[in-house]
């Protein structure tokens, strides 16, 4: 405990040096702005700005990208509450109730509650992260290939049911896994699916792929006019911070939702969107004003927003503790860690403890800064939303092309980015989850070598994996996660048929 506090204090000392502080402020500012512009998102900002972190030291680059992520948690909410245009899926539940409040003319207070909920969710998420990661890192040092295989399978199978269509989400995960197999095979060193392109012998470069999938695909969506520009009404852009006693009255909602979010976020692969839905529905069940939900009630803003913010930070628990990302942003961060020659997981605590504790300190600071910057940001975001569309999309296009080129100064990477832009466009067109694709792409290089190592250890007999109690249990959990919803669906269908026959 003493070591933890002293290391954390060391992180705070570093984060308050001018350059790190500037990165943190800039990151939150960019995250809130990107998050609040429909069509753009914090994850797109992270993808586009990864090339700018090449010249930064690893700690600064991680602090910068995490600050963008934290900023984005609130950014998507502002336009959701004001114009019913949520910036991302995480803030859709908040927008549901928030926009109803806007229609009643209560948007300033709804925005006030949203910003406090985001900061509170982040704070609880970070506290959970500090203790949870340390615990997980200690446990995971005893993990072998079977246990890691089981955990990776849990991350993948939990993602299957997060989308609206199970087949499409499964396809996205498998497509990501397939993409990860392109290049030299682990353990054997044989070329796979490179089709003579020497540039992809080490697999697809991560940066052009994520820029293509998240940013360029959105440019293609604009070009093909899949989405029409939303009309921006002239709603109030004021924020009215609720009084302390109003927050105290809602203390149950704050704590309940943040704990729900933290638990869901810490499960690999589930993420903040599920947490916001669970947070909202739980609150609806326990609230005294059940009948007011859907008509505009503050608890309906606080619950999903706190849960999603807490879950978003919670996704870093499996990332830092065992090196398995809990969501798409955590998956991108794995790529950033690898660019700087770092391997997330238990070893990070012994080899780069400074980075881990500065990251924790930056999250605490970001929760506070978000509160301050978020108060000032709403007006700017609305002004940016009214800028000519061509200016915003010129910015995205140039950043996408130059960002992928800057990676290794090869035109080949620009082609890869454009190709993945088209893939991302098709995915959006057919409703296939891009975060699931990225998770598959990141988890593939963890899953495959551990599967092969486990097979070698257990003489090519996968049934012997179950002789490892923890590893076997984890594999069984992943099978259960995959099969249970199918059985449950069939069972309820049969029950319905029986009742209609009667």
């Amino acid at each position, binding site marked *: 405990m003493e070591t933890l506090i002293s290391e954390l204090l060391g992180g705070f000392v570093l984060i308050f040096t001018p350059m790190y502080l500037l990165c943190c402020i800039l990151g939150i500012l960019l995250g809130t702005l990107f998050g609040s512009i429909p069509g753009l998102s914090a994850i797109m900002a992270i993808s586009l700005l990864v*090339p*700018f972190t*090449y*010249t930064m030291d690893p700690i600064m680059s991680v602090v910068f990208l995490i600050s963008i992520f934290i900023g984005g948690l609130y950014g998507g909410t502002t336009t959701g509450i004001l114009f019913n245009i949520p910036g991302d899926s995480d803030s859709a539940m908040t927008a549901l109730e928030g926009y109803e409040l806007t229609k009643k003319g209560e948007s300033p207070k709804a925005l006030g509650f949203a910003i406090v909920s985001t900061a509170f969710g982040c704070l609880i998420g970070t506290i959970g992260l500090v203790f949870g990661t340390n615990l997980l890192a200690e446990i995971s040092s005893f993990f072998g290939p079977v246990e890691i295989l089981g955990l990776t399978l849990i991350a993948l199978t939990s993602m299957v049911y997060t989308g609206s*269509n199970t*087949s*499409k989400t*499964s*396809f996205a995960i*498998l*497509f990501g*896994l*397939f993409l990860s*197999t392109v290049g030299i*095979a682990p*353990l*054997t060193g*044989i070329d*796979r*699916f490179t089709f003579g392109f020497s540039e992809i012998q080490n697999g697809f470069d991560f940066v052009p792929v994520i820029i293509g999938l998240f940013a360029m695909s959105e*440019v*293609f969506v*604009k*070009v*093909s*006019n*899949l989405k*029409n520009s939303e009309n921006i009404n002239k709603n109030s852009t004021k924020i009215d911070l609720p009084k302390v006693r109003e927050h105290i009255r809602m203390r149950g909602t704050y704590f309940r939702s943040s704990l729900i979010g933290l638990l869901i976020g810490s499960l690999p692969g589930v993420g903040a969107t599920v947490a916001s839905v669970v947070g909202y529905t739980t609150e609806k069940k326990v609230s005294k004003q059940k009948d007011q939900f859907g008509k505009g009630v503050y608890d309906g803003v606080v619950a999903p927003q706190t849960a999603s913010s807490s879950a978003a930070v919670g996704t870093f628990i499996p990332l830092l503790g065992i090196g398995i990302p809990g969501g798409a942003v955590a998956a991108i961060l794995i790529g950033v860690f690898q660019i700087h020659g770092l391997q997330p997981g238990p070893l990070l605590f012994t080899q780069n403890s400074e980075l881990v504790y500065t990251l924790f300190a930056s999250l605490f600071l970001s929760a506070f800064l978000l509160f301050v910057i978020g108060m000032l940001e709403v007006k700017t975001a609305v002004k940016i939303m009214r800028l*000519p*569309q*061509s*200016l915003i*999309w*010129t*910015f995205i*296009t*140039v*950043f996408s*092309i*130059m*960002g992928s*080129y*800057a990676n290794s*100064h090869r*035109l080949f990477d*620009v*082609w890869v980015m*454009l190709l993945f832009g*088209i893939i991302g*466009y098709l995915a959006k*067109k*057919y*409703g296939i989850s891009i975060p699931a694709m990225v998770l598959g792409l990141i988890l593939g290089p963890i*899953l*495959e070598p551990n*599967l*092969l190592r486990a097979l070698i250890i257990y003489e090519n007999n996968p049934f012997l994996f179950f002789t490892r109690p923890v590893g076997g249990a984890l594999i069984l959990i992943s099978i259960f996660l995959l099969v249970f919803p199918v059985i449950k669906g069939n069972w309820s269908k049969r029950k319905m048929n029986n009742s209609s026959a009667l």
Partner: protein
Amino acid sequence: MSKHVSKFLLPTILLVLTGVSVTRIVNDWQAFLFPTIVLVLMLLTCFGWLNNSETENNGESLRLIPVAVILFYCFLLPFIGIWLATILFVVILQVILDRRIKGIKLGGSIIFASLLIILFERVLAVTFPVGSLWI
């Protein structure tokens, strides 16, 4: 139309890749076991999804196809170079997004895009390939 193409194209590509993977698994199972499992599962989920899919109307326009062709072609030509290809794409975007095109807006976008490219050149020390019009 695109739906019908995808209904045949995607399973065909997957079948070809699975075939490639399966034929090579005999010689080197360690390298091709994982891709084969993934491809077979992909094929199954793909059939499941295509069988249950309904006709979707997303208000799609076909103008992405010529834009994508021009874009890929520009980046393939060595003498055009990355800078001009980027500016060309920005012009196409401007024409598509602002229906009533104005010279001043177009010029503004080109200058803005060039400034962003210069920013990249300075901040990330990006050097452009020899033979491009940038140099």
